[in-house]
């Protein structure tokens, strides 16, 4: 596919050109936090970010959305204008591919998600500065991973970006600007170098091999009694996770009437599994913590063949008590299975 070189100062006009046909969503810093916002001007873009605080999954699967209103016969869905997400990280792009498995499964396609997904192009920004808490390379990702993107840009460190189209739609975007140069040998060399450097920075290496099986073996282990102790049972790790996708259907009332709303929910909350009878199959934090780990590294693997974790490290950075999933995985590896 096509490759181009774009200067940093060209990005603005390129995106503004694309803005005629697309809504542009890009990292914007507000109140000290970087999130993906719909931008009016490319001046709003915050380029120097490690990663966004919240994941861009909420552009496809918002924290809360009205599915329909009971008062009206049909929901008026405003047709979604095609969108571009600019500078999405490869790890977050991968998370969308994992969510596709859930929301775009063979038997039931979630129309809300699928529509947004189809109408959105992903312009990836390679991660030249992976953080200490990153472990994407352990979960089949990488800072320059191209999978699931339409286009990947990489900062060459000299004010220029190497742009590679990965899909036809991505190629079309590149063709919209004819002032872009073709890359030469020198730039290719530079790209290889920044890529190598970035990959080296992903220091955490986790042995994921056999983790699924190991989890089967230690389901009833006292390991879970220990590991959950510090956990406060809040929803930060699940709500800031790029692959967590559990939700609740709720009836919410406002002045205009009743609406059925889909809203994120968290397996860390006791009410998540509380039944009307008062029975709760996951009675304590121990079971809930186990569910979270099992879902990511065992159940999801069994169902879809992949780990439901992209190694973005958000749960590690944001946990109020610094629970570290890497350490938990390591401990699991070292845990002796129960005698059967």
């Amino acid at each position, binding site marked *: 596919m096509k490759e181009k070189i774009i200067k940093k100062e060209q990005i603005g006009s390129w995106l503004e050109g694309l803005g005629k046909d697309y809504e542009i969503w890009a990292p914007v810093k507000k109140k000290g936090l970087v999130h993906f916002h719909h931008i009016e001007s490319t001046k709003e873009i915050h380029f120097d970010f490690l990663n966004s605080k919240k994941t861009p999954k909420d552009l496809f699967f918002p924290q809360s959305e009205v599915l329909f209103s009971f008062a009206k016969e049909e929901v008026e869905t405003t047709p979604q204008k095609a969108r571009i997400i600019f500078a999405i990280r490869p790890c977050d792009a991968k998370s969308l591919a994992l969510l596709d498995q859930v929301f775009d499964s063979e038997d039931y*396609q979630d129309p809300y998600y699928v529509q947004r997904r189809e109408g959105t192009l992903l312009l990836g920004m390679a991660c030249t500065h992976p953080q200490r808490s990153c472990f994407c390379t352990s979960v089949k990702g990488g800072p320059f991973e191209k999978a699931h993107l339409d286009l990947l840009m990489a900062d060459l460190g000299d004010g220029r970006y190497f742009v590679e189209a990965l899909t036809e739609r991505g190629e079309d975007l590149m063709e919209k600007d004819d002032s872009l140069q073709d890359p030469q040998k020198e730039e290719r060399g530079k790209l290889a170098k920044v890529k190598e450097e970035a990959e080296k920075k992903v220091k955490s290496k986790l042995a994921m091999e056999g983790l699924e099986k190991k989890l089967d073996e230690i389901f009833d282990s006292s390991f879970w009694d220990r590991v959950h102790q510090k956990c406060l049972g809040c929803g930060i790790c699940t709500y800031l996770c790029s692959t967590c996708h*559990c939700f*609740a259907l709720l009836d919410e009332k406002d002045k205009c009437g009743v609406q059925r709303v889909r809203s994120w*929910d968290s397996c860390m909350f006791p009410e998540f599994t509380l039944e*009307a009878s008062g029975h709760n*199959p996951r009675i304590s934090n121990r079971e809930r913590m186990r569910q979270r780990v099992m879902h990511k590294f*065992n159940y999801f693997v069994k169902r879809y063949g992949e780990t439901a974790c992209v190694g973005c490290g958000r749960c590690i950075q944001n946990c109020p008590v610094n629970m570290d999933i890497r350490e938990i995985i390591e401990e699991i590896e070292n845990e002796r299975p129960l005698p059967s």
Partner: protein
Amino acid sequence: MNDLYRPRLVTIRKTVIENEARDIKTFELVFLEQKDREKFKFDCGQFAMLSVPGAGESPIGIASSPLDDEYLHFTVKRYSTGVVTTALHGLEEESQIGVRGPYGNFYPLKAMQDKNILIVGGGFAFTTLRSTIRYLLHDKNRSRFKDITVFYGARSPGELIYKSELKEWEKRGDVNMYVTVDRGEESWKGRVGLVPNVLKEAAPSSENSMALVCGPPIMLKYTMPPLLDLGFSPERIITSMERRMSCGIGKCGRCNIASKFVCKDGPVFTYKELRDLPEAAV
């Protein structure tokens, strides 16, 4: 296309209070639109989401038979902490509610053909079994199955549900009925004893047989050993599970027992499957 989560409208044509405590009610529902009824093709053991605007949705097993094509039956127990069940019980006949489904898998009726069928139910968890019995006993079907034996128990006579049907079935010659209660009352002339004990005593043959078992966890726990003793292999013991659900289609993530979603991979599981699921606790 955006109707994945949108319930179809039904009218509550009739309600029947099933028990003395008056907290179990059967709702007879008819679709407002005939095409919705035609689309709603289900098998015994499946469930649907019942929807009361403002309260929410709840997964309820379908209690009518697939051959009852005019209406749907749902038997719902009201819990003081259950938003939807409380709202449902508060509705009058002729009210409109929503139904979304059918969802989940179903009892293996094909595999049950030409076999002896053992049905074991307890308390209020008799609803999808009732659907099955109605189906099996239907004139069209009865001859396709061998002996049918039903064990059904409740805490007290007043807590037995589907009473008039139980009586009808008892009158029939082509089904062996064992109705029992944990505690009898003066007026109760029938059996007294826990379901597992009655089952042990009656000792139905496991020869060419399959067992469908549904009941409270405690009953399941004590029913499995005698069934195994009688020679039912774990693959031929079928049961149905329940969990809190929101979507009913395997997306919302809450009803899983280990890697299986009760809404999609279940609610019907063989005892063998459940034993292999660590979280099932059976």
